[in-house]
């Protein structure tokens, strides 16, 4: 199936989960990454159970914060 990851179209296997995609994409510091699928944010405890579908658009956002 074809999905879009960070604006780039990619062919991936059917049944791919968000967790697997994080591994495949070699996402650094995944504990600090927020994932959106079709502009909907996915809770981190749902990464394992969220199965991607053909045509999905996925974005990885790194948490950005700090303090003085």
């Amino acid at each position, binding site marked *: 199936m074809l999905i879009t990851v960070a*604006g780039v179209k990619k062919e991936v296997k059917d049944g791919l989960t968000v967790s697997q995609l994080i591994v495949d994409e070699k996402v*650094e*510091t995944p504990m*600090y990454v*927020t994932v*959106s699928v079709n*502009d909907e*944010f996915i809770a981190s405890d749902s990464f394992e159970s969220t199965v991607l579908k053909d045509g999905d658009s996925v*974005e990885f*956002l*790194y*948490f*950005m*914060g*700090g*303090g*003085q």
Partner: protein
Amino acid sequence: MITLKKSDYEKILAYAVSELPNEACGLIAGKKYENNKTIEKVYLLTNIDHSNEHFSLDPKEQLAAVKDMRANGLVPLGNWHSHPESPSRPSEEDKRLAYDSSASYMILSLMDRKNPVLHSFAISGTDSEKEELVIV
């Protein structure tokens, strides 16, 4: 070296002042060539911590900004935030939460309201190094 337009500096400053006493924050995007970065657009985002000591970017606004960068052929260059009551230098928390060693972390100090100070830093682990910042 990192280059920022004066109009964008003024945009950041005005927003940071408007958000006092809380920290303000946002993203920077532009072009990168070897060690030179040119900021072509600054993004003013909501600090969802609404705090004078912490900031976290609003993820929804962050997502919209990333899409806007892509649509405009810009690359993410880093982020900026204000320190309402402390100098322009990365705090321990700033360093701890700086995950991207290739990013620029700009800090605007409003400690002396009449003399705001903006510096840009590269942060890697517990080390930070001031970058040459040129405002044109």
